[in-house]
């Protein structure tokens, strides 16, 4: 914590810089920029010393090593550079607008259309270090639609959509069973899904996301709240060769073995300070079965720092610290199909960075700065009373 005083003064400088920067970004990008902190979170989730991240044209060109002499340096003594946090189950900017319930199968719904980029919630998430999030249709429908991957800020400081063509959202949560339409039960839901997949297999048109999903080309993020739901999803996977990411927490210890090797990954959570032991243990259980785990933040229905709370809770319940850090950065990027572009501090990745005053897993750490594509888009105010709430 001895860096805090120094940190403050740096932040002041940074604040000025941030105010000036957006106007001149275009000219500055090629010159390169260095984020210089004490350590960084590597692609392996471990904290490595030598927190030098060199950014050129919005992309990371060098990690660790010496600070290039000609570059502009943002110094954060004592800080830890972490990839921008990624919430893979959010509804930021579209809260309450992702609940369509007329039809159980709606592959052509795209969450992008609900996105309100002027929402103030986005700023709150950014201030907590969340740079990227999956705008996902909710769990009311079997096939909810297309997920859009968005950013709380682009390099110009304004929220943006990174891709509209994210994974497909599916759900057999109890809320998808309705009395006034099909399906009304799990058996009915699985039956309907099978019919839908089989129909989609016959329809080879390129623009039908269901066809891509049925052919195993497009990932489906599948909400399966109970252990039985998980097994049902795994049977579908086995029958049709689907590419699945499961959203599952409760019965992790019962199904982890079956899930292992069958899915791209599992999304656990959201977890909070009141989460029961059974749920808190889930992430660690999956990790021990070598299943990649991402933690859901559930923004904005949760506190802005809920990703870090989830990671801290899971870490106390047996998730290794490395996996916990990856669960809110690299793994969600992978699960959203963006793993080669964001989520890690490594050469060639988009420079979405958060500088924390310490380990991002440690809830005592504060956000010192947030970068998106190499541009510093957020530095906190100095007074606590000007905190992170919009």
């Amino acid at each position: 914590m001895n860096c805090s005083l120094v940190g403050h003064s740096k932040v002041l400088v940074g604040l000025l810089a941030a105010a000036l920067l957006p106007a001149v970004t275009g000219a500055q990008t090629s010159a390169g920029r260095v984020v210089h902190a004490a350590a960084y979170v590597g692609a392996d989730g471990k904290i490595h010393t030598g927190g030098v991240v060199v950014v050129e044209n919005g992309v990371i060109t060098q990690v660790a090593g010496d600070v290039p002499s000609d570059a502009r340096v943002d110094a954060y003594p004592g800080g830890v550079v972490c990839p921008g946090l990624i919430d893979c189950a959010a509804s930021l900017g579209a809260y309450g607008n992702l609940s369509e319930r007329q039809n159980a199968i709606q592959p052509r719904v795209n969450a992008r259309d609900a996105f309100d980029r002027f929402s103030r919630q986005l700023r709150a998430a950014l201030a907590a270090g969340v740079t990227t999030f999956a705008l996902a249709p909710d769990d009311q429908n079997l096939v909810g639609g297309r997920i859009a991957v968005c950013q709380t800020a682009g390099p110009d400081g304004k929220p943006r959509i990174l891709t509209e063509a994210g994974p497909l959202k599916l759900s057999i949560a109890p809320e998808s069973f309705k009395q006034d339409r099909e399906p009304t039960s799990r058996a009915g839901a699985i039956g309907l899904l099978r019919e839908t997949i089989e129909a989609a297999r016959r329809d080879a048109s390129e623009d039908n996301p269901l066809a891509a999903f049925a052919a195993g080309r497009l990932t489906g993020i599948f909400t399966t709240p109970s252990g039985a739901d998980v097994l049902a999803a795994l049977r579908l996977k086995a029958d049709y060769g689907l590419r699945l990411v499961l959203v599952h927490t409760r019965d992790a210890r019962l199904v982890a073995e079956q899930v292992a090797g069958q899915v791209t990954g599992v999304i656990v959570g959201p977890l909070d300070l009141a989460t029961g032991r059974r749920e808190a243990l889930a992430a660690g259980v999956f990790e021990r079965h070598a299943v990649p785990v991402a933690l859901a933040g559930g923004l904005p229905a949760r506190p802005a720092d809920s990703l870090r709370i989830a990671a801290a809770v899971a870490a106390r319940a047996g998730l290794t610290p490395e996996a916990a850090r990856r669960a809110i950065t690299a793994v969600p990027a992978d699960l959203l199909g963006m793993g080669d572009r964001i989520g890690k501090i490594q050469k060639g990745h988009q420079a979405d960075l958060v500088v924390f005053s310490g380990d991002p897993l440690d809830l005592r750490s504060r956000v010192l700065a947030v970068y998106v594509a190499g541009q510093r888009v957020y530095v906190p105010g100095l007074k606590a009373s000007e905190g992170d709430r919009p």
Partner: protein
Amino acid sequence: MLYTRLGNVACLLAIFGSMAAGAVAACPPPDKVALTGGRIIPVSGAPIEQGTVLIERGKIVAVGKDVEVPYDARVFDVSGKVVFPGMINVHTWRGMDIPNENRPVTPHLDARDALDPSQLFFEDCLRLGTTGVHVIPANNTVIGGVGRVVRPIGMTVAEMTIAEGAFLKISATPRRGHDRMLQMAMLRETFLELDDYLAKLAEKRYEEKLKEDEKEIEVGPAEARKRGRELIRAEDIDDQHRNLLRLRGGQVRVEGEDGPTLFKPLGAFVYCGNAMDVALAVKVANDNGFFARTVLVLGGDCYKAVRELKQAARPVVLPSQLTHRETNPLTGEVRETFVPKEIFEAGLLFALVPGPDDSYAERMLTYQAAQCVRHGIPRDEALRAITLNPAKMLGLEKRLGSIEPGKDAHLVIFSGDPLDFTSVVEKVFIDGILAYEREKDVRLQRLLSSEADQPQEKAE
């Protein structure tokens, strides 16, 4: 014995029996009745094969293999059958019109005033071999009222009565709409209020006394209360407080015009719905001096408080649901605990009660006892839990609960072993009266006949 069997009463019984109960008319008891040739399970001792039970004027006078049957005795040959003590349902509100009064604190209520002799419940008691029923207000209360021990025959409450109510119902578990804290606060305050009441009463009595003597008062209220204490007469205490006083003080001595009056002490059946209530119940009982006369009525998970129960060493009435199930919130695994086993191992005196009417099996005390045997409780102990133990709890062990000379002749003739589920109750004797005969149980026969599609009579 409050009730003396007179011929006319017996006649009434006979009429009532044939009219309402559909069971065998309770005939005037012959002076002497002998049950011969049956296997006698006296509960208090080892079974007697082909023994004889001799009854004179409603009391058992001899039990054994070589009992001589007098020439003038009415003899029932029960060879091949089993003679068992009449069973006792130690805790039920059934037989009254409603379980509880709406008000939370009602110590003045008495089951006597609510008992309905014509209820089919009593007929069912006979049919299942229950000859003693402790009817007491139910658990949805703070202080519920006084119970009463009755036999399931008789036209009036007086005829039915085996013993006056000796227990007040108290609940340590919140009644509906109460939280736990309010429940305990109300209990505490009820007794504090009793003190206030007695103090005021003493003061009033002292003033009255002075007035009678045409003296002027010369002391302040505090002293007057002290002096007036001795002047309180039985009739000065109102209904609301009389039973509380009996409960707390045991034998309360109050000077009356005809010398000192003794209030009979009351005990309490204290309901503990959850383990956490046990300690509270014990505390309330201790604080108010009725601990030594307390029976604890246990709910589902009370076995968890076995340490406290053991320490208290008071008799307990077990929940009718003998197996307690709870789900581990973490693993979803169901934990099952057989409650009587825990209680038995703690060495407590316990009684079983029948389950709700809609459970065909559990409403039989014999089934409840059989479950205990199945779970490893010694057979003798299980049998005592439906006969002698409840009698002890009610303070009636000199009259009920076993087949021994000198006891009231409450006997059940089973077709086979009582714990065998295929055995049926063939005859019931209550105070020597043949109160039930299966062959003459019209309603049962109709139920068992092929004409079962007839509209059934509503059971209560």
